[in-house]
């Protein structure tokens, strides 16, 4: 599905990562500073790798040899950021609709309703992001990314800015998302307990290198190594 083989140097730190994902939720697991965010930014097109290749299905998103570098806005990859990044000047409904409008997709009331119900954000449409709780904000951010009909959904520590109670509030939605939508996901986190509930496969990233890839059982081993 998604195949990544990239190199990127950032001062002293370097990333040289290679992995492939299937459908379902691929966890990118590793300690803080392992380069997880830079890695997903390269997949999204926000950071350009020095060398390598990124393909999604049969589309080359980046290929240094063939000089392909699809800009972020043409990749159709949904991205849920750690801090939500909702547009403060737009109401929730306009935030949700933004990706669809910018991607030039026709309005689809049924699909919008499905996502809104899935995330339980129907009553928030008229509010501004500044008036939402942390949990609501992240649910809207997930909805916004899904409504652009992405071919892949990236989630970069989507629960990291939330307290324990809010995390418990969001996790069931993410599980429903995994079970009910066909969009493959790459889920970045350094919290093994979070990933244990949501991941279907695991990529372990340490100091910019992929040190292991496999099933969920990897989490137990990885946690033991990391702690």
């Amino acid at each position, binding site marked *: 599905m998604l195949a990544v083989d990239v190199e990127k140097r950032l001062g002293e730190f370097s990333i040289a990562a290679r992995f492939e994902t299937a459908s379902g939720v691929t966890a990118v697991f590793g300690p803080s500073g392992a380069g997880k965010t830079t890695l997903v930014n390269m997949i*999204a*097109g*926000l950071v350009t790798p020095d060398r390598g290749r990124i393909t999604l299905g049969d589309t080359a998103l980046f290929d240094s040899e063939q000089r392909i570098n699809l*800009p*972020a*806005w*043409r*990749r*159709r*990859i*949904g*991205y849920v*950021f750690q*801090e939500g*990044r909702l*547009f*403060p*000047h737009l109401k929730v409904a306009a935030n949700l609709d*933004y*990706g669809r409008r*910018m*991607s*030039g997709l026709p309005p689809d009331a049924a699909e919008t309703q499905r996502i809104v119900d899935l995330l339980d954000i129907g009553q928030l449409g008229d*509010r*501004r*992001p*500044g*008036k939402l709780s942390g949990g609501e904000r992240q649910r809207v951010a997930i909805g*916004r*990314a899904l409504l*652009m009909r992405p071919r892949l959904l990236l989630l970069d520590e989507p629960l990291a800015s939330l307290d324990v109670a809010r995390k418990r509030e969001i996790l069931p939605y993410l599980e429903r998302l995994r079970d009910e939508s066909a969009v493959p996901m790459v889920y970045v986190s350094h919290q093994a307990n979070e990933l244990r509930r949501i991941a279907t496969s695991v990529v372990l990233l340490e100091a910019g290198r992929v040190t292991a890839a496999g099933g969920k059982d990897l989490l137990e081993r990885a946690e033991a190594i990391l702690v």
Partner: protein
Amino acid sequence: MLDLTPDEWIAIRLSLRIAIVATVVALPFGIAVAWLLARKNFWGKTLLDGVIHLPLVLPPVVTGYLLLISFGRRGPIGAFLYDWFGIVFSFRWTGAALACGVMGFPLLVRPIRLAIEAIDRRLEDAAATLGADRARVFLTVTLPLALPGLIAGFVLCFAKALGEFGATITFVSNIPGETQTLSAAIYTLTQIPGGDAAAARLVVVAIVISLVALVLSEWLARRAGMRFHGE
């Protein structure tokens, strides 16, 4: 009450027209320059920044003189514009608008630049992942978020244009009905015997216009700011 003569009304209308035209025409240039200065690094950036701020520190008469020798009918730019487009600035109200626009430009650019610099660029990244190309990111995220700065810059430029005197009178002189603005009319009235009452009337008008513009901008800025805080 104020009982304004037709001549005084002409000066007031002319002033408003010059200030509005100067500010509206300067605005797109101001946004472009502010964006360049806020976001881009290029050769001569410091020079551009300096040239834009020059009218703020130069004596207005000097700015007016420079406009006269470059945009006058025999000036290099003025001659070109006349020969090719039939545009004349010297001794016309359009010249007054040009002088006012140049004088107000640094005041227009600065708040917009600061507003653009204050924008969280990660929001622009988010917009890009949602399918917005660079032009649309600018129009749907950058510009709306810079709106308070845009309003502030617009009002400062308008106020400067409305009160501009030195550069305007040097460049396009003081012709009633063509280039005699409110400020120039007040100045003229104070120079002639018995003009005090008329000057006082125009002074009151100038104060009223300025206050209305100030209150209006305050109100607009608050509305724009409120949107970000979820009211």
